[in-house]
């Protein structure tokens, strides 16, 4: 069993509950055990760092320290949480003075940030730790003939100085996963583009334009569904889909899946079990 500390993203606790639920279903099948970090707090989601850089560092040093205390790597299944916590980690590792200031505070909770735990995405664990061959062998219901559009989402790719796993210009990990599950990836130019999530409240029109473009291409390419490793992208592309497409004057729709659901389907679980019915777009 491969054990990891599992970070609870705010959105997965509230709107996109299906993500964690689906992971719970199949983690054992792939030899994974995720230990949920109930003491973890919100990462600050690409907003906290400019309200207060120091609070941002503290909060995320603590999140990582909680995993370190258990001697486990911290695994995340939201892109922005991934990018955010990794950015904080980079800052802490590069700025000894900051690290000391934070650790002086963390001491009071019996925690210490040492930098010994890696912060990674579920997708990377599947590709790197479990391995495509092992996954292929466990597939019960290959996603045969499904034309799938891989939407990576910005924060699992950029900035590459913080993420560095995939080539931001031509990423491949999600494509490889789809292939291992028996699906067919389509040449989707929006694979490394944005979904507009972070400005949905502040600049709605622009975000809808951005989301609509991603949706339109997948629809034009006759994809059966879009899959994404990020619940924020999912919310933008699924939750806001009707609004975005209406705004763009497109009459059509396309289902959006989380990678955890896609994996679950291939491993033989039913859509209902996985929580697929919770999506806005069916």
């Amino acid at each position: 069993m491969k054990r990891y500390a599992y970070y609870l993203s705010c959105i997965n606790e509230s709107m996109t509950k299906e993500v964690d639920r689906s992971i719970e279903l199949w983690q054992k099948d792939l030899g994974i055990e995720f230990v949920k970090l109930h003491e973890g707090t919100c990462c600050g989601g690409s907003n906290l760092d400019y309200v207060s850089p120091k609070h941002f560092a503290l909060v995320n040093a603590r999140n990582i320290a909680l995993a370190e205390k258990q001697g486990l790597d911290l695994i995340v299944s939201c892109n922005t949480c991934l990018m955010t916590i990794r950015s904080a980690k980079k800052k802490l590792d590069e700025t000894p003075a900051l690290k000391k200031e934070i650790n002086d505070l963390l001491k009071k909770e019996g925690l210490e940030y040492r930098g010994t735990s890696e912060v990674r995405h579920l997708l990377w664990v599947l590709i790197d730790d479990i391995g495509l061959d092992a996954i292929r062998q466990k597939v019960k219901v290959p996603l045969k003939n499904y034309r799938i559009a891989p939407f990576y989402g910005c924060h699992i790719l950029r900035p590459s100085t913080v993420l560095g796993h995939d080539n931001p210009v031509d990423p491949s990990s999600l494509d490889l996963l789809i292939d291992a599950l028996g699906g067919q990836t389509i040449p989707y130019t929006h694979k490394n583009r944005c979904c507009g999530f972070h400005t949905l409240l502040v600049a709605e029109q622009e975000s809808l334009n951005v989301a609509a473009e991603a949706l339109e291409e997948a629809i034009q390419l006759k994809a059966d569904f879009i899959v994404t490793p990020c619940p924020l992208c999912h919310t933008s592309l699924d939750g806001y889909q009707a609004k975005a497409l209406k705004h763009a004057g497109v009459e059509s729709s396309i289902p959006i899946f989380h990678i955890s659901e896609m994996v679950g389907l291939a491993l033989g679980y039913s859509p209902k079990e996985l929580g697929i019915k919770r999506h806005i777009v069916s």
Partner: protein
Amino acid sequence: MTVPIDQHIEQKQDVTFRIFRFNPQVDSKPYFDDYTIPVERGITVLRSLNYIKEHIDASISFRAFCQAGICGSCGMRINGLSQLACTTQVWEVLAKSREPGLIRVEPLRNLPLIKDLIVDMDPLVDKMKHYSNWIDSTMPESSMGKKEFLISEEEFLRYDKATDCILCASCVSECSILRANKEYVSPAVLLKSYRMNVDTRDALHGQRLAELVKDHGVWDCTHCYRCQESCVKSIPIMDAIHGIREDAIELRGLKDTSGSKHAEAFMSDIEKKGKLVEATLPIRTNGVFWTIQNLLPMAVKMIMKHRTPPPPPLVKPAKGIKVFRELFREMTEHVKQDHKSHKK
């Protein structure tokens, strides 16, 4: 690595350049022309374009000047990526090219097309003017030239990287929000604005900031990081954009704009519960009226799918929130001390 001592053998391969063409005088819409030429190892895309222009088709038009990566003239999209043609090695692009032996060359995005690979820079210059991208010196002109301002290394480092910008417009071309709205301020302009704001010789700080927080300004950035990723000078542009937001919050407060209110909500939710109260996020950002007007249909759908975020009282705080809150508040004191010592 052994190289024959008296002769450098040039490795060559045939490369097809698929170049975007459009002459508004005669063409109704753009098209692509293919040119296949032998290219030696070490040759850049610009040199290849020059070769094509000189030997095959003199009409292909593009900007180029220094050929050394400093003037910023030759920004264009090479296999979809915005960069400088003069510093891009053909063989390196080929190695990653999806279509073997083929390189697509297109003009920068998000700026009006003039001809072939040439786009209009004026909209960018106009934005630089609009957002006062210059130092408005605190020293009157009549006193200039006698003594320099004393600038510490610390301050110099604040704007040093930002002064690397050569206005090549690669970031402008890659920006997701600019693609959706041509009036958006643009990453390059935000970078320059930040550079001006952190320079103590500048007198316009507050006014510049006031303009930057308005519509189509700094709060519209969706942090997709495409700008930073494509920067030919590796400037951390997002540090500048976040720097402006941090500055805006400090100088203008958290209630200033919907953008700052959005950020405030994160800070206060984390302190209170350690988790976001998503249900009231739209209301705290934009107000009740806006939320009802814009999100009601979606809210209804979500209710039907049991997908709504829990109302505030039902948002479960993180385990151990009390101790966490103590740490958080102690940090708040630290930050207050920092600010006091910075204010001279």
